[in-house]
């Protein structure tokens, strides 16, 4: 028996309601205007209400019956993939193109199910070289290869 706690629809509905309510609440600070002269608050308020309505419907539907959220996902990937992207952002301004790219490639490889060190190092070298040739030398993007050293 699928439980409400694993229901796709229920949580989807909850997400929509949360976003919808937030939109309506935040948009209260913006002048609503009239139908003739719609203020900046008009459209977002309507959209927020629409989202809430969809959310309520989905949550109710999910409470009755719904597909369960499938378990085949990797918490590791969910953390490491965005994290390595953030690291790229931090490093490219401070350390340069090459370090940022190498960290991103090795970092995101670590999110996968298999991690073979030799292979990953080879990939990082080859891919970084390719990117330097194509993007920096070929397309002329103005990023320092190494910075701050």
């Amino acid at each position, binding site marked *: 028996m699928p439980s409400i706690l694993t229901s*796709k*629809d229920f*949580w*989807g509905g909850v*997400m*929509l309601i949360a*976003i919808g309510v937030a*939109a309506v609440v*935040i*948009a209260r600070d*913006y*002048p609503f205007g009239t*139908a*003739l*002269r*719609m*203020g*900046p608050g*008009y*459209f*977002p308020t309507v*959209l*927020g209400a*629409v*989202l809430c309505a*969809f*959310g309520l*419907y*989905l949550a109710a*539907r999910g409470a009755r019956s719904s597909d369960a*959220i*499938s378990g*085949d*996902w*990797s918490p590791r*990937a*969910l953390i490491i*993939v*965005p994290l*390595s*992207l*953030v690291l*790229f*952002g931090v490093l*490219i301004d401070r350390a340069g193109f090459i370090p*940022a*790219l190498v960290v*991103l*490639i090795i970092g*995101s*490889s670590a999110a*996968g*199910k*298999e991690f073979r060190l030799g292979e990953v190092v080879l*990939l990082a070298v080859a*891919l*970084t070289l390719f*990117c330097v040739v194509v*993007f920096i030398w070929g397309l*002329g993007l103005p990023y320092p290869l190494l910075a701050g050293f």
Partner: protein
Amino acid sequence: MDLFNNLIFGFAVALSLQNLLYCFIGVLVGTLIGVLPGIGPLATIAMLLPITFNVAPVAALIMLAGIYYGAQYGGSTTAILVNLPGETSSVVTCIDGYQMARQGRAGPALAIAAIGSFFAGTVGTLLIALAGPPLAEVALKFGAPEYFSLMLMGLVAAAILAQGDMVKSLAMVALGLLLGIVGNDVNTGLPRFTFGINELTDGIGFVVVAVGVFAVGEIISNIGGSEPREVFTAKVTHLYPTRDDLRRSLGPILRGTALGSFFGVLPGTGPAVASLSSYLVEKKLADDPSRFGRGAIEGVAGPEAANNADAQCKFIPMLTLGLPVSGVMALMLGALTIQGIQPGPEVMAQRPELFWGLIASMWIGNLMLVVLNLPLVGVWVSMLKVPYRLLFPAIMAFSAIGIYSVNNSAYEIYMAALFGVLGFLWIKLGFSPAPMLLGFVLGPMMEENLRRAMLMSRGDPSVFVTRPISLGFIIVTVLILVLMMAPAIRKGREKVAE
């Protein structure tokens, strides 16, 4: 003749060395990602979009379009040889294509797929050239109410006809619209939903959303899934179809092209809908339907023609009305906007080289694909041996560089990471992200037109139903909604989704 002159002009544009080169790169990349399951045209175009900023608009669009229809060709190769759909559009091709390959007829299957696609591509190109100018002519007369109703119709239809849960798709459209209006309000300059963050006053970057959701989000979700990547490649011996093959394929190709062209201009119907309906039609018309599923060449010819015709005709509403009917078209629209071109019916008059050059390049690109695909089949198949664990770090690298190169802003990289997580969440909860992208692109335009329409009518909302063209769009919107609520159609739709 006008059409003739315009096409000649288009070919002159498309045949310039630079444009030919970009067309070639486009179809090459398109075929590659088409062959590879796990990466589709949406993610690829999003990733490469920023790189096209430094290129002339025509060349940029030619290349991006090439990726899109090139992927349709590549997808069929994987479907026939490996029984895996390289793209969703070639799901149906697996059925009979792979059976043909098992019977040692992989060559003719590939050849017929290419011939069918090429024919459909040619017809699709002609259709754009024929339908484009009159449509744009009509659209030039549109005022704010017409545009609002048109966008409403487009978004509702896109959400409802798309694969996946209807309600969830509609909700995603609304969410996309909301995300689209983040930033300074056009009329008053008031910052909305910026949370005091300076970078958000110009709105959330289009590339950030597209790459974040479709490249990063997909990767997070793909890594978790199982990897169905066993390659049991059938040997391709001889390519040429027999006379009998050709005779059998002629009808399916013609009908598939017609079906694909029809579904192509409808919002939301992905290429899978076109190819599936072509398959069903051919099965119904066949003298001996039991041959289907056991290597009937009709089951390859029809669907392959249909999905390519569909892909080409998706350009018609985008180029003439500025209305994206699929996720990829939303990206194309974004590419135009970023290049400083306001999409809409004026494009054809103001930038004829863009419209006609693109059309001509599509035909040239289709020709290149036939030449590229058949002799090089072995090369493409060997690409399938590249495991996903080597592929996704490369996608991450290109994505990161792409996002950063838009504004040289690390902040946008962080935003993309956030959208990656959101994209993953949406996929897990069964929300398909493509309708969100449509809403996101149209959000600001829709609000703008709504406000203008209400000003025009002095606050009277009946303006949307008293102007005939606008009324027409509204009627269609309501009709689609009502039809889809009907239980019988709903059931049929669920069946198709399976």
